[in-house]
């Protein structure tokens, strides 16, 4: 495997063949709901929906999803605590509504994070890039982004192998050696990346590359019932939030 668990999950997801537009409508809808709806019960509903859809119909492994959503927790916790601590002339204390403000921050962040991960674990990044093209992003920019996606896996493997070789030769046994090894590692990966680009250029010229990297667009048919379900679901979610809050 490639080692980027979210990417592996996206390619293996049962939602991978769904139209990117369908998934974008649903997930961006959830992201927006997480952002603008009041935390109770909006965030809870968005979070539950995202988790339910990912683990249920989209068949994303629970472990991958949980780990991905957990990753930003350190930032969210530290950031939320910092936001609700009050600094005044008589020292440091909690702001008056610390619990509510902190809770709201964590709630919004978790719900939003889960919604973004629903997109990320069901849609490979390379599927999203053609959608950028439809959103009027210049072709050259989309092609550069596609190359980044392809090459980052090649370079990640290089980086891991070099680091393993360095570790094996005791390159990370002290902090000082770790710095030195990291510098050598960064330089090695940089030279590899240039070399890769140069060689790929030769390889693609041989395949008749002219000015762009044109490929056959993949046809992923849009589903009316999925779109209808999305609109209905998001409406119900907003309605419930308004009624309950």
């Amino acid at each position, binding site marked *: 495997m490639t080692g*980027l668990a979210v990417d592996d999950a996206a390619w293996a997801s049962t939602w991978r063949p769904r139209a990117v537009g369908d998934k974008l409508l649903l997930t961006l809808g959830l*992201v*927006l709901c*997480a*952002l*603008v709806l009041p935390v109770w019960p909006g965030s809870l509903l968005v979070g539950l929906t995202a988790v339910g859809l990912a683990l249920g119909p989209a068949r994303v492994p629970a472990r991958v999803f949980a780990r991905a*959503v957990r*990753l*930003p927790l350190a*930032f*969210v916790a530290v*950031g939320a605590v*910092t*936001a609700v601590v*009050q*600094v*005044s002339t008589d020292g440091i204390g909690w*702001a008056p509504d610390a619990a509510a403000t902190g809770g709201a921050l964590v709630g919004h*962040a978790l719900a*939003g*994070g889960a*919604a*973004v991960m629903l997109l*990320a674990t069901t849609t490979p*990044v390379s599927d*999203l890039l053609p959608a950028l093209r439809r959103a009027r992003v*210049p072709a*050259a*920019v989309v*092609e*550069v*982004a596609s*190359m*980044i*996606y392809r*090459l*980052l896996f090649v*370079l*990640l493997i290089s*980086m891991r192998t070099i680091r393993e070789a360095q570790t094996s030769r005791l390159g990370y046994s002290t*902090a000082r050696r*770790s*710095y*030195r090894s*990291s*510098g*050598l590692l*960064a*330089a*090695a*990966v*940089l030279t590899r*990346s*240039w070399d890769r680009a*140069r060689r790929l*250029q030769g390889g693609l010229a041989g395949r008749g*590359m002219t*000015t*762009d*990297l044109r490929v056959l667009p993949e046809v992923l048919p849009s589903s009316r019932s999925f779109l209808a379900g999305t609109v209905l679901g998001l409406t119900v979610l907003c309605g419930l939030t308004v009624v309950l809050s």
Partner: protein
Amino acid sequence: MHIAEGFLPPAHAIGWTIAAAPFVVHGARAVVKEVRENPESTLLLGAAGAFTFVLSAIKLPSVTGSSSHPTGTGVGAILFRPPVMALLGTVVLLFQALLLAHGGLTTLGANAFSMAVVGPWAGYGTYRLARRASGNLLVGVFAGMMIADLSTYVTTSLQLALAFPDAESGFLGAAVKFLGVFAVTQVPLAVAEGFLGVLLFRVLTVN
């Protein structure tokens, strides 16, 4: 350390997206022009972006015992200039948000402003100044990469302070808090990234 999804209030998310947009569009124009004049540069720019992504995955040991990752935008700014880095940095941030759950979509604008705009420009400016003042490439690289890293986190702290002003002391008090938590702790890591840059350029200039 990127601002997580859902952490910024909607108005701030929109505001920072608008603030970052002109720089990113400017960078996109630079890339389009470069690719039109020189079709092969698609591959080179792709490699540069992939390198930035991978570099930010290299773990640096910090003095405090924990470890952190370089921002990687300083080296890109020195090698490819800040406008190009504004675009590549934003693409890398999008990839980090989706592949690593690092950052977010609604906070992409805010993160792009700090990491793909302020960091590269501040780093590049410092690099030019320090290199001219000292006459030494490595001094310039060290200062440039350190400032690129540090200015990114200072910007992030100020963004958070703007979004969450202190109830009593307002923006200034909040700025002190967030800078204390997110930027002061970053100083040793910024120094580490500066050293990483020196090691990296030393190897590159030997070859």
